[in-house]
C-alpha cells in the first residue's frame, strides 16, 4: 500500500477522513516511472460536491487515456483539515499518489461558480504554490482555469497562468504536447506560455493589459506580447457522439451529492432565455446519438453499480429522441431497481407517464420554473412558459395523484414592476386552486406549494449583461412586498415562501461582471479568513465588505449600474460565438417585451453558426411546443 499523506492521528481526528484517502472504485493507477506529465485536476469545493461533477470525470478519463500523462485529483480540504495542514505545514496532496501538488506539472482548476474564488487561493496556498501567477518560478506547476466562470476570468486573472475557454475535449492534447516539446528543448515557463498563446481557445492573462478611464470603466484592453491573440475563440466539441466520455466513472465511498450515473444527453439549449448564461455560452445545441447514449448508460451502470441514472441537459424535453431513450431505460433497468431521474423536464403527458413509472408519486414533487410572475415579464426574459401550460400540467399531475409543487422565480429582473411580483403570489394561488377544483375523493390530502425566489444576477454573454442589478435594499423590499401578497391569497396556508439571502448574490454580481481590480479584494478577503463562501455558516460578509473598502472599490459600480452599448466590457476579448450585436439586439427586444423564437423554430442569427455544427445545420420550422 502506498503511504497516505496524512497520518492516522490526523485522519482519525477530522470529519469524514475518506475524503482524503483516494482509492475509489475506478480510480486510475499508473506507474509514475513511465509518466512524463503529472496533471492535478481540482474542484475547489469539498469532496462530496467535487466528486459529483461530470466535467472533471470527463477530463480525468480523457487525460488518463494518454500514456504519458497521469491525471490525479484534489478537492478543497474542509476547514478542520485546513487548520491542521497550516499548523503542521503539510503540503496539499493529490488523492491518487498522495504526492504534494507542488511537484506536479499542471494544476487545473474548474470554475463552476463565483463563490469558490477564495477556495482557489486556499488550494494554491496549502499546496505551497505562489498565489500570484507572476511570483511563480520554473519549478511551480502551471495553473489553469476552466469552466463556465472563465467567460469572465478577469477578477481572478492574477492567480492563473492561463485559462482554457470553452469545452475541454478539443485542444488539451495540444497543451500537453507543447509542454513536452518545450521541456525537451529546455524552454522556460514564459516560452511555454507563448506557445500556448498561439493555440486557439487559450488565454494567457499576463500577455494583456488594461487601462481604465476616470469613471472606472475600461479605456483600453491591449496585448503586451506579440504572440498573443486579439480575440480568444471559445472551444466547441463538434461531435458529441464521437468524443471522450467516461465509461467507468469514479465511485466515491462516502455519499456524493450526485450519487448516480450522469448521462449528458445534449449540450446547449435552444430556448434563449435572456438571463441564462448557460443557454448562450454552450451554443450551438448539439445532441448525442441515441445509440451512443444507450451504450453508455448500460456501461456506466455496470461499472458503478449505481441505483440511479440522471439524464442531464439544460432542457431535457428538447432532446429529440427523449421518449425512446427514457422508455428504453425503463424497460431495461427498472426491473433491476434502477431509478431514472430527469431534471429540467417540462411537465406534460409524457413526463407524467415517466414520473409515475419511476418515482413514488406520493413522495415526489412537480417543478416549474416560470422565473417571472407575469406573462409580460416572462416575455421580457424570453421564457416561453405560459400560465396556461403551468396550470394544465399541474391539473393533470394532481389528477394523477401528485400534491406537491415547487415553483422557482427571480426577483430583480429588468423592467420588473409591482404587478409582476404580485403575479408570483397569484400564480402560486391559482395552482392551489387547481388542486382544490378536483373532486375531494381524488385528492391526496392537502396541496403543498413551495415558491422560491432568487436574486437576479446579470451575467456576461447574456442579453442582460448590460443590465442593472437591484441593490440589496430594493431586493429585500421586493421580498417583503411578495411575502405580503402571498399572505393575501386565498390558499396562503398551502404556500410556503423561500427566498435567497441578498449578501451572497451581491458578491456573485460583483465577480460575474468584475474586472482585474477585484483580484486584490479576493486575495485580501482570503487573507482575512474568507473561505467556503458558498456555505452560509462560513460566509463572512463583513470581511468581504472590509476588503472592498480597503481597496477603494465600490460594489455598486459593478452591480447597480446599467452599461451603455459602447462600453468596453471586461470579457469583450472572448469570442463566444454569440455576437455582441446579437446580445444587444436581444436586450432591446427584451426591454420591449418581444419574444425570440427558439433555435428549432427559426434561426435568430446569434453567431454560433461559426462553429459549423449542431442545431445551426438542422432544418428549421419543426414543430416545437413551448
Amino acid at each position, binding site marked *: *500500500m502506498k503511504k*497516505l499523506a496524512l497520518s*492516522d*492521528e490526523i*485522519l*482519525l481526528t477530522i470529519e469524514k*477522513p*475518506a475524503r482524503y*484517502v*483516494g*482509492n475509489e*472504485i475506478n480510480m486510475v493507477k499508473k506507474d509514475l516511472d513511465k509518466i512524463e506529465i503529472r496533471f492535478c485536476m481540482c474542484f475547489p469545493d469539498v469532496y462530496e460536491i467535487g466528486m459529483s461533477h461530470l466535467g472533471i470525470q470527463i477530463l480525468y478519463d480523457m487525460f488518463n487515456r494518454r500514456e504519458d500523462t497521469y491525471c490525479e485529483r484534489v478537492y478543497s480540504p474542509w476547514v478542520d483539515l485546513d487548520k491542521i495542514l497550516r499548523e503542521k505545514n503539510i503540503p496539499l496532496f493529490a488523492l491518487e499518489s498522495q504526492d504534494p501538488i507542488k511537484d506536479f506539472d499542471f494544476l487545473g482548476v474548474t470554475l463552476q461558480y463565483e463563490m469558490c474564488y477564495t477556495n482557489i487561493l486556499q488550494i494554491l496556498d496549502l499546496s505551497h504554490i505562489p498565489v500570484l501567477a507572476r511570483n511563480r518560478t520554473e519549478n511551480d506547476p502551471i495553473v489553469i482555469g476552466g469552466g463556465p466562470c472563465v467567460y469572465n476570468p478577469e477578477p481572478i486573472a492574477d492567480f492563473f497562468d492561463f485559462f482554457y475557454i470553452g469545452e475541454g475535449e478539443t485542444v488539451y492534447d495540444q497543451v500537453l504536447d507543447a509542454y513536452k516539446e518545450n521541456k525537451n528543448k529546455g524552454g522556460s515557463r514564459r516560452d511555454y506560455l507563448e506557445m500556448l498563446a498561439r493555440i486557439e481557445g487559450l488565454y494567457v492573462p499576463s500577455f494583456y493589459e488594461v487601462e481604465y478611464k476616470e469613471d472606472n470603466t475600461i479605456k483600453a484592453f491591449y496585448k503586451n506580447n506579440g504572440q498573443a491573440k486579439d480575440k480568444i475563440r471559445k472551444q466547441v466539441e463538434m461531435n458529441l457522439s464521437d468524443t471522450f466520455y467516461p465509461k467507468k466513472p469514479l*465511485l466515491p*465511498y*462516502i*455519499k456524493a451529492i450526485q450519487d448516480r450515473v450522469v448521462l449528458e444527453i445534449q449540450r446547449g439549449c435552444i430556448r434563449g432565455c435572456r438571463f441564462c448564461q448557460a443557454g448562450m455560452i454552450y451554443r450551438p445545441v448539439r445532441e448525442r446519438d441515441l445509440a451512443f447514449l444507450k451504450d453508455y448508460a448500460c456501461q456506466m*451502470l*455496470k*461499472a*458503478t*453499480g*449505481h*441505483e440511479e441514472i440522471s439524464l442531464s441537459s439544460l432542457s431535457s424535453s428538447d432532446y429529440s429522441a427523449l421518449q425512446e431513450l427514457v422508455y428504453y431505460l425503463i424497460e431495461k433497468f427498472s426491473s*433491476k*431497481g434502477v*431509478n431514472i431521474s430527469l431534471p429540467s423536464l417540462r411537465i406534460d403527458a409524457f413526463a407524467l407517464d415517466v414520473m409515475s413509472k419511476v*418515482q*413514488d408519486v406520493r*413522495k415526489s414533487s412537480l417543478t416549474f420554473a416560470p422565473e417571472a410572475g407575469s406573462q409580460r415579464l416572462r416575455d421580457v426574459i424570453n421564457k416561453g412558459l405560459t400560465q396556461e401550460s403551468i396550470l394544465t400540467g399541474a391539473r393533470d399531475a394532481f389528477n394523477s395523484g401528485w400534491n406537491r409543487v415547487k415553483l422557482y422565480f427571480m426577483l430583480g429582473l429588468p423592467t420588473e414592476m409591482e404587478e409582476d411580483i404580485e403575479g408570483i403570489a397569484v400564480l402560486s394561488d391559482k395552482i392551489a386552486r387547481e388542486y382544490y377544483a378536483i373532486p375531494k375523493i381524488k385528492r391526496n390530502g392537502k396541496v403543498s406549494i413551495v415558491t422560491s425566489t432568487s436574486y437576479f444576477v446579470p451575467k456576461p454573454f447574456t442579453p442582460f449583461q448590460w443590465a442593472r442589478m437591484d441593490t440589496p435594499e430594493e431586493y429585500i423590499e421586493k421580498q417583503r412586498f411578495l411575502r405580503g401578497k402571498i399572505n393575501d391569497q386565498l390558499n396562503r396556508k398551502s404556500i410556503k415562501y423561500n427566498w435567497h439571502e441578498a449578501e451572497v448574490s451581491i458578491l456573485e454580481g460583483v465577480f460575474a461582471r468584475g474586472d482585474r481590480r477585484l483580484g486584490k479584494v479576493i486575495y485580501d478577503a482570503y487573507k482575512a479568513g474568507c473561505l467556503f463562501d458558498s456555505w452560509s455558516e462560513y460566509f463572512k460578509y463583513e470581511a468581504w465588505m472590509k476588503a472592498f473598502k480597503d481597496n477603494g472599490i465600490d460594489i455598486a459600480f459593478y452591480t447597480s449600474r446599467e452599461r451603455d452599448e459602447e462600453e468596453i466590457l471586461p470579457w469583450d476579448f472572448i469570442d463566444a460565438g454569440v455576437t455582441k450585436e446579437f446580445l444587444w439586439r436581444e436586450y432591446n427586444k427584451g426591454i420591449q417585451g418581444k419574444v425570440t423564437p427558439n433555435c428549432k423554430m427559426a434561426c435568430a442569427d446569434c453567431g454560433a453558426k461559426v462553429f459549423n455544427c449542431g442545431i445551426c445545420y438542422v432544418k428549421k420550422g419543426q414543430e416545437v411546443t413551448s
Partner: protein
Amino acid sequence: MKIRIKFTKSGPLKFVGHLDVMRYFQKAFRRAELDVEYSQGFSPHQLMSFAAPLGVGLTSDGEYLDVSMNTCDAPEIMIPRINAVMSEYIRVVGFKVLPDNSKNAMSIVAGADYLVSVKDGYDFMDKSVFEQKFTDFYNQENIIITKKTKKSENDVNIKSMIYHISFDREKFQENMGTPLTARIKDSVADTYANETKVYIRLAAGSVNNLKPELVMEAFCRYAGAEFEKFAYQVHRLEIYADLGDGINRKLIPLEHADSFAKVY
C-alpha cells in the same frame, strides 16, 4: 436463499465507516450482477445485514454480512466474480449458502478475536515488559472499568468478558481450539517494527460487548502508563457465534455457524 459472505478490510479503507461499507457492497453486488433479492415497494433495497459494525480506523480479516439471493453459483465461482469488481482493500474470502432457518449473523454474534498492535512511535514499553505486565493485568481477579453513559457512570467488571489473551497467534488459536488456518499468512493486518502486540478474545454482540480500546485503556491504568488513543492499531481477526450449551461456551466462527440450533 441466505448467503453469508466473509470479507476483509484493510489499508486506506479503514477510514471508510460502516454505513459507507454497506453502500459499497450494495453497489459492488450490482457491478458483479448478482441475483440479489430486493425488498418490495417503490424504493427497493437489497436484503442485506451485517454481523457487527467495524469502527473507523479498524482493519479486519473476518467481517460478515448476510444477503438474500434468488440464485447463485458455487463459492469457487462467486468469490472471484465479486472480487473482480471490488477494491483491493475490501476482499471477499468466504461465500456460504445457509439453511433457510438460519438466524442472521447479527443476532448470533457472541465473541470476537482482535489483534491489538502498538504503532511505531508509540512503543511506550519494551515488548517483553509489555507482555509481562499484560499477563499480570489479565490474571487479576477483577478488572474494573468505569463506563460512562450520557446520564451516569457505572463501574463494570470486564474480567469475564475477556475470554483469552496471547502474544502469539499460533498459540492463541491452539489454546482456543480454533482450527489453525492458512489465513495467518494471508492476514491483511498492518505490521509494526516494534512487534509489541496482543491477541485477545472478547465478548461481542447484543448481550455483552467489550471494545478492545476499553481493554487497552484499563491496561494502561493498571500499568501506570498514560493511555494514548492513537497508539494502537486494532485489527479484528474473527467473529464468533456461541454454539455451547448455555453453561460452557463453544465459540464457532460465523462462517461455520450456519445452522444455529442450541443443543442442551
